[in-house]
């Protein structure tokens, strides 16, 4: 590993969960136990997942660092590598290198309320920090999760959504876009920014974490501002195309900021400093 930055860990796919059309979660375990001992990460970091013979693809680690012995990733089948990953079976071996990037400053959030807002396939990067916070539940005041997807079918982590719904210490609001509801849908109907506005969570002592498609993010920030959230208290993640993951291949930078090294976690205050190149 020291000699060759590009050498992935070998990981065995322990379990595959079908989340939504085209979306799967892999539970991965280190093939070599020695690798596992060396490995540590924090919520918000990402890695390069590879299918040998096909290539590498960048996505977040979706499981919390508080759960040891495995990592999980959730991906949507869209490109060459995710197609190949999707074709993998339980027991298959894939490559993983990482962790890369910065982290959600969970320690700094101690004593505050947390508001998670996610849309579609952007729940996975947030799931890591949600579970991280829930595993250290006593550190935080209110925990609110607002999660929306296009249709009921597109909601990911359906089992965990049920868990969160049942927990007394979590307030979960799920929503689907108008027209995306099923006859038995009991959640909200409407786009995420609208629902945030309707729920109107308090900004007092609260950190907001927002992940989702660009259009959702674009319309959610003003709603949060209206609710009194300052730019320093809203966190989000950026995703740009990457190859190396550590500031060399030259793709992911937004102005002088490298998403792979300075990100992927940014506050809105930091985003406002960046040129429009993401």
């Amino acid at each position, binding site marked *: 590993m020291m000699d060759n930055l*590009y050498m992935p860990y070998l990981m065995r796919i322990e379990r595959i969960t079908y989340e939504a059309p085209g979306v799967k979660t892999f539970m991965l375990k280190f093939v070599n136990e020695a690798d596992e001992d060396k490995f540590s990460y924090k919520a918000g970091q990402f890695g390069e997942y590879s299918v040998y*013979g096909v290539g590498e693809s960048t996505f977040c680690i979706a499981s919390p660092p508080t759960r040891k012995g495995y990592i999980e990733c959730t991906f949507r089948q869209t490109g060459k590598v995710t197609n190949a990953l999707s074709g993998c079976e339980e027991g298959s071996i894939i490559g993983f290198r990482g962790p890369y990037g910065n982290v959600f400053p969970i320690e700094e959030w101690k004593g505050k309320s947390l508001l998670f807002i996610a849309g579609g396939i952007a729940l996975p990067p947030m799931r890591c920090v949600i579970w991280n916070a829930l595993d250290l539940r006593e550190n935080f005041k209110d925990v609110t999760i607002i999660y929306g997807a296009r249709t009921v079918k597109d909601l990911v982590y359906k089992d965990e959504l049920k868990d969160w719904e049942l927990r007394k210490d979590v307030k979960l609001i799920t929503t689907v876009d108008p027209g995306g509801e099923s006859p038995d849908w009991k959640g909200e109907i409407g786009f995420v920014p609208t629902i945030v506005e309707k729920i109107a969570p308090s900004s007092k002592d609260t950190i907001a974490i927002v992940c989702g498609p660009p259009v959702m993010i674009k319309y959610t920030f003003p709603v949060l501002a209206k609710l009194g959230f300052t730019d320093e208290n809203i966190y989000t993640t950026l995703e740009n195309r990457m190859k190396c993951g550590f500031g060399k291949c030259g793709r992911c930078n937004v102005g002088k900021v490298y998403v792979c090294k300075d990100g992927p976690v940014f506050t809105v205050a930091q985003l406002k400093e960046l040129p429009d*190149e993401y």
Partner: protein
Amino acid sequence: MNIDKRLVRKDSLEKLFDILKQNSKKIYAPVTKNGKTTFRDTASFSLVSTGYIQTTESSKDISFPRTEKLLDYSKNKEGMSVKGIDLKDIPEVILWGIRPCDAIGIGELGSIFNWDYKDEIYNNRSSKVTVFGFSCNKSDEYCFCTSVGGNPGNTEGSDILFTRMGEDGDYIAEILTEKGQAVAEIASGIFERLETADKEKFLADVPVKFNHNEISEKLDKFFESKEWVDQSLRCLGCGACAYVCPTCACFDIEDEAHGKNGSRVRCWDSCGFSHFTVHTSGHNPRDVQSARWRQRIMHKFSYMPERLSVYGCTGCGRCSRACPVDMNILEHLISIQEVTV
């Protein structure tokens, strides 16, 4: 170490080459083909080009090959075996005849490959290169090393720097490093005693064309300038500039599969290509050529100085010479300096 200045007679250069060859040194030297001069593994001194102002390609290929294997894998019954390249396999080489602007580029490239994460593949390759620099006694209108802190007789990056005394003269050899010393010892008879020598008077005159500090400062607030659009209109978006550049480091990582076996390779890429930053979703953060041209200039003259404390440009002028549509970097930098924001 103290710089050891020696005399190498013009007729001894061939002898030096032969001695190094006899000591089974791999020598990469400038060779001309189709009218273009490039560094190639060269067997004989007779093939070595002289008189070139600058080679078409830079010498970065030696420490950062255009295509280089990162690892091999093979799928078998037990699962998978993966083997990284063995750094011990990387050969020692002599890089013969590079210009000071290329020699300085090795370090600039190195600063990218060592930004936090140490890229030992690059480091290993570049540590195994002994650099025989040759000062410039000629320059052309594309040269601007002096504007980015270099000069035609700059010793930085070379292990031995040769400066020719006049058109057809002998050489001053400055032995600059232990690596240079070690190679010089193999052919100690070649390096004669030198009484006094002032290499400065033999060097090309490269006037300073712009103030690079001023440019960096200006670029900081130049992102939204219309200048990028004006400059890049004729740019065709090929990768010629990046591929001949001694400090362009953008790369791609790809797998090459053959049945159950294959390798992962790293290969050059260019920020000028339209698909360079495109997301799988189709979204492209740099979706017009002007944004990509801006990235090239900003990276070299703003981001690198700020983040890595080095310039991403050595003033070799290769990109301007290689450009099929005459995108002249010097001209564009000067116009950035002149334009009012």
